[in-house]
């Protein structure tokens, strides 16, 4: 009973902040598509026939922060690092937090939360009546409707090239055309269907015959987009319980 008394104000605070989050802190992306790395479907007339066509959807403007994730585990203690099941998160889960899942370094409160598994990220989004974006939605958001494509690729490569320093606060870089920040340059992000790209360790075994290294990679829609190769192969290597100190997430929501 006493637990409930304590929990109640916490619920109120978190409940109201979650509400504000979904309205102000998300951007509405129009329906559309992008040219994926793995197939050159550039000349498709009908937008909806594009393999990567996505419906209108909402996406968080910035990645989820340590502060937000900490309030989530307060209400859902099964996601504290002391209580999480090993099937849902590996031993590095929330390594930036202490045993009570609180942050030691207060300057990291508004940095992206990292070392979260796919299961934990999904649970966080579901608790806010959201979901993780699909890989197509995420790539579409990054492609930014073709605005400054070369520049985006270069930014991504520059970021991949330097070792990660301390993670900055979210939203410290300018937003893209959709109003989204930090899609590159800060952390990698989980997608709901990260496990959908059928690339095995040898892609020749899988459905993606156009993408293995060497001459075959010329079949990719843009062989110079090394950054995209890296993202696709990284996603293909992930497991749901995996956590990485450069791997965070943001949430999405259907527009309907």
């Amino acid at each position, binding site marked *: 009973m006493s637990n409930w008394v304590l929990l109640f104000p916490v619920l109120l605070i978190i409940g109201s902040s979650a509400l504000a989050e979904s309205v102000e802190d998300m951007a509405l992306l129009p329906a559309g598509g992008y040219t994926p790395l793995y197939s050159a479907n550039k000349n498709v007339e009908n937008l909806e026939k594009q393999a990567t066509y996505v419906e209108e959807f909402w996406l968080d403007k910035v990645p989820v922060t340590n502060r937000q994730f900490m309030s989530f585990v307060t209400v859902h203690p099964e996601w504290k690092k002391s209580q999480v099941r090993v*099937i849902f998160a590996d031993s590095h889960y929330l390594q930036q937090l202490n045993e009570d899942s609180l942050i030691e370094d207060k300057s990291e409160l508004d940095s992206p939360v990292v070392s979260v598994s796919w299961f934990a990220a*999904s649970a966080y989004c579901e608790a806010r009546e959201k979901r993780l974006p699909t890989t197509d939605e995420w790539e579409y958001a990054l492609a930014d409707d073709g605005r400054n494509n070369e520049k985006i690729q270069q930014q991504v490569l520059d970021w991949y090239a330097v070792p990660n320093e301390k993670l900055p606060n979210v939203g410290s870089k300018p937003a893209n055309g959709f109003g989204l920040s930090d899609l590159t340059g800060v952390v990698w992000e989980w997608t709901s269907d990260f*496990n959908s790209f*059928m690339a095995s360790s040898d892609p020749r075994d899988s459905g993606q015959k156009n993408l293995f290294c060497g001459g075959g990679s010329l079949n990719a829609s843009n062989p110079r987009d090394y950054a995209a190769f890296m993202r696709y192969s990284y996603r293909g290597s992930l497991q749901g319980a995996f956590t990485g100190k450069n791997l965070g997430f943001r949430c999405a929501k259907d527009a309907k």
Partner: protein
Amino acid sequence: MRKITKFIWIMAFLACAIPAVAHTHEEQAIPVPKSESLFNLTDSWTTSNGKPFHLNELSGNPSVIAMIYTSCKDICPLIVEDMKKIERRLPAARAGKVNFAVFSFDSERDTTKKLKEYAKSHGIDSLSWVVANSKPEVVRRLAVVLGMKYKKTKTGDFEHGIAIYILDEAGVVQYVQTNLGKNEEEAILALKHMEH
């Protein structure tokens, strides 16, 4: 003196027993699965008989499970055939003591009715078998736990991995069969190891 001792013993027993009973009751209400068990997934599925189904209903016996969809004409029937082969090779004493379950990738098209037709036409409409569907996010969660990759294509079909999973009675994956049509020996062996 003996009477007093006895009395103390009884009081001590009562004092301990009451909270102990309450404690046991609590544990029974929410059995905690092994940390690496599939039964940690508490999502709700619906069977081909229209009944709600949870993974922990597979507990107590080993299980043979796979993910398929019913409009898949080439690979999925072979997966089911291999599962039936495993079922046929169970020793008579174990018949009905191994669960078989297939979970659909296709939340949209694999309705309860369609699953029932499928179960009937493939001869898996028996008590040992569960054929179930659920919401896309629930399907995804099971697939991620199993390490099963899949993608829905624009035609509504699915590209997916091929695997039959053997779970022990606690829901922990003990063996994965990934090549079809020839290699059920290992699966049979894995099940044999789980006999008591």
